[in-house]
């Protein structure tokens, strides 16, 4: 199903669209009436989730060191835990990535996007019975922006200069305009807590659809449904049990023997075997994470754009995606953004493997001898294999790549961001602005391609405070082209999030925001007996 039809069916499922409307739009999109009818029926059936049951998740990523404080949540496990018991001010729409209201009912930016006013939802109760006030919100945000804060959201929050109340509204003043502010507030650390969690940051009391009933770090967490939940379109199962399972084989065994309903992080290498189990469904969702080969634009021989282009054309992306990710991903186009980001520039031509062009640019560059590529198993799963594949495809273009395997321990401090040509990976960021600011701004600590372009920096800052979406999208397109054609980034593929569930789990939403239905998996699914 294309994204658009998926979007349409989701609108039906959410009850926002009736049959006539759906058929009309689907027909306009070129779907036959009969097919559209069936689609509507399936989607409408999905509209009535069943309540009740005990949902069990077997998840990778928990550790005994996990903190209950959402500010310090790091692991995949705690990411889901926080989404179960708490709410943010804003959520992102699962299919479009646009900000949608959560505890903030609505918001309004000033003309320069530097002052934002949020209307806080009324009548929402915390699990301890207290009513949510604007004061709780302010205290929460203050706790995450405080100079002494150890919050994982400190990075995204640092542009907030002032947090204040205007009656029962929240006003945020930024040090510079940022049109993406609502999306930044979807960060999973920013769970709104009573009195901002200042009394007890570890209380795990929030406004979410589930109350925590027990929690043992690195072992297990259990939840019961919050009967006072302010939303009716979530929290379908009666209770949730999350079990920490750090061994991939253990997760697969637990799912295929029916001991758990859902597991995360299925290894692409074994996914075809798991598919054979009759009771299991594979859930593959496009993600923002990507595997990269990075060249320093300011270091010889990579300071020559012809050589960089030669190396980009010498990459056989399709083969690599097939061999390294087992097809569970999308080919990359040498800029770090894909269709899962809002305002993605979709009209940029896909770069493909072209030994002739590679040979042409290689000749132009005047480079001779081999090119040294450093890699390691820790760079990304299958990085060494990928480097060898790359070596082969480059050979056909007459480019000699020497692959050097580095030790895993210390790779991130001694090789990545230090050596001029290496392999690495990037997790996604909530917005294009965040992604470019983290790794492509001249002054960024993690500018791992040494992309030093004043015009790019200027454009990035301009786009940040631009409220006109069309203009902004255009700016992001220009930036993408700069990185694609002149940067030091070779991006062969974006990796999918590969999870799996039992066939009796229904209503799973493929959320482009992040892994595991953006962490909301337990609050969105229901069990079909």
């Amino acid at each position, binding site marked *: 199903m294309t994204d658009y039809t998926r979007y349409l069916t989701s609108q039906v499922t959410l009850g926002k669209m009736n049959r006539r409307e759906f058929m009309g739009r689907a027909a306009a999109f070129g779907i036959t009436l009969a097919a559209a009818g069936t689609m509507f029926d399936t989607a409408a059936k999905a509209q009535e989730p069943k309540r009740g049951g005990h949902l069990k998740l077997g998840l990778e990523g928990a*550790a005994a060191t996990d903190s209950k404080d959402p500010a310090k949540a790091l692991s995949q496990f705690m990411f889901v835990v926080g989404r179960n018991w708490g709410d943010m001010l804003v959520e992102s729409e699962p299919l479009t990535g646009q900000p949608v209201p959560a505890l903030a009912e609505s918001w309004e930016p000033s003309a320069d996007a530097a002052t934002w006013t949020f209307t806080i939802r009324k009548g929402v109760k915390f699990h301890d019975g207290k009513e949510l006030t604007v004061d709780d919100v302010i205290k929460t945000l203050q706790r995450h922006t405080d100079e002494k*804060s150890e919050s994982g959201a400190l990075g995204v929050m640092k542009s907030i200069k002032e947090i204040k109340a205007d009656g029962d509204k929240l006003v945020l003043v930024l040090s510079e305009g940022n049109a993406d502010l609502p999306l930044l507030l979807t960060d999973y650390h920013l769970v709104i807590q009573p009195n901002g969690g200042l009394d007890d940051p570890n209380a795990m009391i929030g406004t979410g659809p589930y109350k925590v009933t027990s929690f*043992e*770090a690195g072992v297990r967490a259990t939840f019961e449904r919050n009967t006072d939940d302010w939303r009716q379109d979530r929290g379908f199962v009666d209770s949730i049990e999350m079990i920490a399972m*750090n061994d991939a084989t253990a997760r697969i065994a637990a799912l295929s*023997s029916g001991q758990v309903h859902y597991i995360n992080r299925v290894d692409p290498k074994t996914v075809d075997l798991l598919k054979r189990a009759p009771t299991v469904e594979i859930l593959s969702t496009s993600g923002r994470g990507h595997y990269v080969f990075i060249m320093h634009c300011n270091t010889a021989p990579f300071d020559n754009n012809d050589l960089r282009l030669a190396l980009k054309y010498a990459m056989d992306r399709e083969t690599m995606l097939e061999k390294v990710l087992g097809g569970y991903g999308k080919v990359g186009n040498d800029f770090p953004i894909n269709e899962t980001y809002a305002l993605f520039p979709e009209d940029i031509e896909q770069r493909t493997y072209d030994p002739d062009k590679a040979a042409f640019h290689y000749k132009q560059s005047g480079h001779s001898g081999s090119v040294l590529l450093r890699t390691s198993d820790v760079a990304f799963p299958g990085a060494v294999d990928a480097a060898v594949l790359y070596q082969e495809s480059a050979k056909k273009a007459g480019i000699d790549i020497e692959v050097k395997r580095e030790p895993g321990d210390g790779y991130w401090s001694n090789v990545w961001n230090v050596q001029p040509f290496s392999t690495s990976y990037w997790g996604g960021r909530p917005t294009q602005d965040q992604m470019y600011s983290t790794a492509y701004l001249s002054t960024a600590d993690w500018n791992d391609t040494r992309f030093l372009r004043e015009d790019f920096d200027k454009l990035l800052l301009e786009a940040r405070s631009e409220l006109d979406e069309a203009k902004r999208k255009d700016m992001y397109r220009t930036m993408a082209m700069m990185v694609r054609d002149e940067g030091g980034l070779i991006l062969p593929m974006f990796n999918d999030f590969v999870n799996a569930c039992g066939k009796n789990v229904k209503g799973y939403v493929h959320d482009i925001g992040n892994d595991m239905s953006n962490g909301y998996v337990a609050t969105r699914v229901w069990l079909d007996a």
Partner: protein
Amino acid sequence: MTGGGPAHGPELTAKAAAGEVPQSAGAAGSVASTGTPVIEGTPSFWAKFSKSSPLVALILQRLALSVALLFAVSLMIFGGVEALPGDFATTYLGQSATPQAVENIRKDLGLDQPATTRYFKWLGGAIQGDFGNSWASKNSVSEQIGKRLGNSLFLAFFAAIISVPLAVGLGMLAVQYRNRLPDKIINVISLAAISLPEFFVGYLLILFFAVQLGIATFPATVYDSMTIGQRLSAIALPTATLVLVVLAHMMRMTRAAILNVMSSAYVETAELKGLSSLRIIAKHAAPNAVAPVINVIALNLAYLVVGVVVVEVVFVYPGMGQYMVDAVTVRDMPVVQACGLIFAAFYIFLNMFADILAIVANPRLRHPR
């Protein structure tokens, strides 16, 4: 992290073991000569004392030594964690680390102070029995360890009460039918079990008993609100795995030790003297065979507590090994130190216990010349 687990666990426990194993390996032979003066100024008293009551002397000596060993272990763990790239603040924050957040955590935990200051500060607390709070979760280390250690001991206990009698019994059976079919079957099976890596044994058991037959409980996660029956059913598979892994080692040692003694001159003499075979084994052979067997059992028991991190991961069992690996991953020093010391203490205690039992069992060691 699953990859880091097995790599870290054995490495650290090996460190704890390294200091102790050489001493115990030759325990049976060397205990008699450990009575050399160690306390300066009173050589005659100590020599006399160790002669008159070698057991008490040995225990005292070992206790003093173990304190020194524990101290050395704590120093080594501290040095080891210091030497790892990155400190707690950077590894804990990972990709979301901003210079300011890192700075805040460092200041908060006193990581900006020199390593020596931090070590002695920790040592000061530990001597008074205060292991501090985990840096990551801020919970009391002793409280958290209590639970995890309880789980580890629970599993080890059941693995031990099954595997030790089974190993000794099978060993004796093998001696009885030496070089005949039962001996050969026992040998082949035990060699196969010892050659398979423990995680593989675990996966095989999961595949057959949990996935295909569906009769065993999996995952083996245990938690507070479980009844004892649920707990026992949860640990059935990991216990079976551990039994298979440690069985062969102990069984073969028992067999070798008894065979060795049975072929010695004094057993032949006893036979020629006309003693009954039961009397020969009980009075002459067993006391000499028991020392090496006890030592192997002690090592395996220590392994059951300290070295089972891989089995814990495979079966999703919340024991000490996994807890320590988690802590090492983020350089959570108070937890790593406390776990390391407990592991070392286990090795020291079990080896001491093995030596004492060897002396008690063997009159020649009980009354040294």
